[in-house]
């Protein structure tokens, strides 16, 4: 028996794999550690399906400290950021995270990220595997007056699920109640006596929170949250199945320099004023795609039966290949396999019957509107 299509299983002796602040904590709590984005991270604890269901029914605690937390400040930081992101900062209220993307000159996606206006600068959360390239890209395109700081002394936790509010509300203090935060709002709070930044956001489709905290307090705060009856620790495996059900793209798989924001069906992240004015890296391609449409599009595919199709599998209409999977797996909530793919635009309509080739067999699939599982954000 051997793993033939495995995800990121690490080798025990790779010296370049780094550890995160909660490394010992995960091992002590029974996390099975794998290499991911250059770090040792827990892929699962009790089991991916159980953790998935727990998050959808209770609250799951995810360590996402591998992600890059950046702080940008300095004279002219707004104009500088608007030159690299298709975001309208004039409409970005303080402490309200917004989704955006780093694009290259050709409109390819270098990363997707969250941007928040703090008091005197901007807080960005970028993907772990891309953070070093992102920093180089930003440094190249931002003026020297802008300081870019990697917040290396901060850990990042996500508490996700319908009971996340109840659990966090019990232990958090602050100038405002936690209930003041609705989806995509954030603020400063205290946990176990430590200053933390909390936003009501996440990557599961559930209500929940993301918590930036001092790395030296990470174990204490993780213990505090896990002491709440609603909360269990969740690994990367369930994080992936949850985000796939929620229709959320994963950078490096569903998004890459080979895909443009409009192909990726992320036009909402090209803010209205920027569509009219352009003036950001990659604008030429993005504005052309908006005006003329694209030849292909990211879609959801629901499969029949139980056999999953995975990244790289070819999508067929009759005998013609019309696309390729960028993510795929078994949906624990729906109990059938689901996938994301880029398919030719004429096959991208919901309900279109297609086939996916897996190990020489054709599996029937149907284009399905995203998300597969409805979002339950607290708006």
């Amino acid at each position, binding site marked *: *028996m051997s793993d033939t299509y*495995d995800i990121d299983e690490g080798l025990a002796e790779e010296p370049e794999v780094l550890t995160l602040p909660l490394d010992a904590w995960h091992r002590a709590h029974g996390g099975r550690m794998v290499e991911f984005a250059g770090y040792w991270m827990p892929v699962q604890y009790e089991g991916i399906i159980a953790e998935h269901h727990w998050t959808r029914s209770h609250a799951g605690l995810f360590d996402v400290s591998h992600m890059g937390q950046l702080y940008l400040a300095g004279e002219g930081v707004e104009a500088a950021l608007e030159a690299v992101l298709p975001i309208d900062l004039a409409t970005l209220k303080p402490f309200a995270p917004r989704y955006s993307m780093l694009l290259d000159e050709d409109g390819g996606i270098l990363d997707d990220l969250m941007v928040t206006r703090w008091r005197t600068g901007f807080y960005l959360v970028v993907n772990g595997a891309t953070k070093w390239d992102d920093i180089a890209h930003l440094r190249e395109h931002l003026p020297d007056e802008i300081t870019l700081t990697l917040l290396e002394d901060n850990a990042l936790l996500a508490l996700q699920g319908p009971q996340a509010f109840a659990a966090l509300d019990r232990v958090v203090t602050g100038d405002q109640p936690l209930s003041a935060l609705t989806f995509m709002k954030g603020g400063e709070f205290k946990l176990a006596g430590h200053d933390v930044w909390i936003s009501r956001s996440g990557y599961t489709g559930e209500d929940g929170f993301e918590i930036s905290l001092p790395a030296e307090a990470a174990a204490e705060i993780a213990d505090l949250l896990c002491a709440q009856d609603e909360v269990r620790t969740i690994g990367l495996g369930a994080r992936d199945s949850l985000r796939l059900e929620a229709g959320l793209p994963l950078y490096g798989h569903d998004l890459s320099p080979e895909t443009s924001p409009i192909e990726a069906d992320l036009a909402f992240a090209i803010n209205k004023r920027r569509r009219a004015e352009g003036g950001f890296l990659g604008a030429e391609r993005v504005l052309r795609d908006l005006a003329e449409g694209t030849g292909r599009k990211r879609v959801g595919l629901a499969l029949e039966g139980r056999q999953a199709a995975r990244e790289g599998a070819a999508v067929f209409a009759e005998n013609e290949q019309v696309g390729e999977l960028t993510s795929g797996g078994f949906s624990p909530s729906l109990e059938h396999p689901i996938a994301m793919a880029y398919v030719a635009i004429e096959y991208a309509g919901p309900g279109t019957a297609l086939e996916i080739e897996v190990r020489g067999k054709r599996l029937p699939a149907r284009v399905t509107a995203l998300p597969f599982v409805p979002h339950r954000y607290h708006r």
Partner: protein
Amino acid sequence: MPRYYTQDHEWIDVDGDVGTVGITDYAQGQLGDITFVELPEAGATLAKGDAPCVVDSVKAASDVYAPVSGTVTEANGALADEPELVNTDPEAGGWLFRLSLSDAGELSGLMDRAAYDAYVAEL
């Protein structure tokens, strides 16, 4: 009924010239939640080392190899509705397929339980 093990974490029970094949408890633990099993059809001819069977878990698809050569006589139909049997009962009810051995001599290259346990302890 003697049971043999492979370095790829298959087991095979041998009764006369018929072998029953599955994956070990160690293997299912490594794979995690199993959601689908692709089984060979009766009549399929296998050479030792062929991969007639694929076990899908939430995170990966994994080949299962034929521990010895032979002809498939039966697959475990219960796995169509309950693939999780491979997790809950890997070394009995979660068996994968049976085959009639074409060369019983190939069994001598496999491990017994003690040797397999020692092998796993080193992993």
